[in-house]
């Protein structure tokens, strides 16, 4: 793998003698979307604030393209585009004026680049309206636009789909995937919603009470671990149940026109084949709860804020 875009080395934060972040160690690589998952209060935003230098690091360091955010702030931060918490902009200025404001803070951003990012996030129409009149979704897009202005190699988005409607969420997801795949940007996305992270991330780090308790590759999880509650809708539930119990040695439950069992992802095609061979008609296959979600809940347990 290539050099990491960002490295967290024993990152700790203590506020008034209370450890908030208890030592995070992980790398984020160019071209990957890293999901930073954890319940509210687990320390996601505190970690992000340390990554971008808004908060002092108590112990450890964050290296961005090899440069320390502590000792080499300017060189480190110029590779980063970020939204921290809500995408807050100056409400009394237009979207364009807001972007021009941030563009002035970094040398070498042309008018064309500003237009380019406006087009990228699809804000051409309302860009000359005051941000105070924007919906949360529009502000979220403007937030992404300002983060992309200087073509950063690392993009940090804190809860980027907050307040977006489903089509907005899908679009953001697409931008994020495109940025990672086409521009080789390392994207860090934080969320407390697993379903969201699962759909756009390559790897997921789960944080709880200031500690990383697991780092999983999304695809690994999908293929190797058990998917609980695979629903298969059939015309003949009884025969289907018998067939699968004999052939796969699985516990199969019935519910109306469905049989329910747990299986690994790569077992599902075999299960379907065996049902088809018995001339059973299949109307649908659904996975009700992914194992990742179970795993997540299991790992998180009760997130008590210490």
């Amino acid at each position, binding site marked *: 793998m290539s050099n990491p875009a960002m490295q967290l080395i024993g990152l700790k934060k203590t506020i008034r003698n209370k450890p908030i972040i208890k030592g995070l160690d992980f790398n984020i690589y160019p071209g990957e979307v890293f999901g930073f998952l954890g319940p509210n209060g687990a320390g996601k935003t505190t970690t992000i*604030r340390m990554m971008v230098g*808004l908060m002092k690091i108590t112990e450890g360091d964050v290296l961005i393209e090899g440069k320390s955010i502590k000792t080499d702030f*300017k060189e480190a931060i110029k590779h980063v585009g970020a939204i921290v918490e809500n995408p807050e902009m*100056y409400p009394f200025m237009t979207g364009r*004026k807001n972007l021009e404001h941030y563009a002035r*803070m970094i040398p070498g951003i042309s008018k064309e680049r500003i237009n380019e990012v406006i087009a990228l996030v699809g804000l051409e129409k309302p860009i000359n309206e005051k941000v105070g009149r924007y919906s949360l979704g529009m502000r979220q897009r403007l937030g992404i636009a300002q983060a992309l202005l200087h073509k950063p190699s690392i993009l940090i988005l804190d809860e980027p789909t907050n307040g977006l409607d489903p089509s907005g969420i899908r679009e953001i997801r697409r931008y994020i995937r495109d940025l990672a795949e086409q521009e080789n940007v390392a994207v860090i996305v934080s969320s407390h919603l697993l379903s969201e992270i699962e759909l756009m991330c390559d790897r997921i780090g789960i944080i709880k009470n200031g500690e990383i308790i697991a780092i999983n590759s999304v695809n690994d999880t999908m293929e190797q671990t058990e998917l609980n509650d695979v629903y298969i809708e059939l015309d003949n539930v009884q025969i289907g149940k018998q067939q699968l119990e004999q052939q796969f040695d699985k516990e199969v439950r019935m519910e109306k026109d469905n049989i329910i069992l747990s299986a690994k992802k790569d077992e599902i095609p075999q299960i379907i084949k065996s049902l088809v061979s018995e001339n059973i008609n299949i109307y649908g296959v659904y996975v009700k709860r992914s194992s990742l979600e179970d795993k997540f809940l299991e790992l998180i347990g009760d997130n008590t804020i210490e």
Partner: protein
Amino acid sequence: MSNFIQLVKNEQIKLYVRKATWVMFAILALIAILGAVIVRFIDDGSLQEYGDDWREELQEENQQITQQMEEANSDEMEFSEAMNPATLERNNYHLENDIKPQGYDAWKYLYENTFLASVISLFTIIVAAGIIANEFKWGTIKLLLIRPASRLKILASKYISILVFALTLLLFLIVVSWTVGAILFGVDGLSSNAVILQLDGTYEQIDLFKETIIAYGFKMVNLVMMATFAFMISTIFRSSGMAIGLAIFLMFAGNGVVLFVSQYDWAKYILFANTDLSQYTGGSEPAIEGMTMAFSIIVLLVYYCIFLAASWWAFTKRDVAGQ
């Protein structure tokens, strides 16, 4: 360096894009215009013009005044009559020193408008109090601080921006006052001399142009100190309301406090005992015995450095955490 100019430009843009800033300019213009109209149309004798035979005119006026003063019952003195002894003295000064009294003109009006510098101070305090606190209030501070510009540079750009704003207001006041004065009273040449009542009760001839610059200059000292104070409070507490309230309260209550504790020796180290440097000019006594201009300047510089150091510490050393 060009980077820094861009930061100051950003601050200026954010300032002038808001209506509140324009309201400040409008209020200042309105006061300057109204003041001129009042002076022009409510005649209290100050607009009187004297011709070539001004000596006779002044003597005639003096006779009238003396007569009036003898007749008047001190219990029912009107305002215009209360001014009589002063007018008499001023006229005598003109006669004794053979100086022709000059008419009221734009320069004189500009000089009299120095008191409006307090309005500029007020507006500058409001801007200084908001320039950091508002970024926290809006949440935009986070996006501001994750750019390749050091916190010190951002802080400095905001501070410079306040001074630029104060200077702009001052220039605006001068231009408006002079223009309105020129329209309503005319202009009496470039070097205008005037006879002004000194604080010790005597009259003296002064170069109005020079005096105007000095008078505004002294007011600016007070302005810079109070604006820096508001800036510090705003940076430390991240609340504009608190900074405005404290700075304005101290600006108005400060002199009273100094008066109240003036019998103590330490009173002369209070900021407000020193902000008015004009106390050392015009033959007046300083607020507390034993103070000199040099002493005040040193005290002011010490305060100034403390204010800036505290702002710097609060802005660059502290975490930017959630609201």
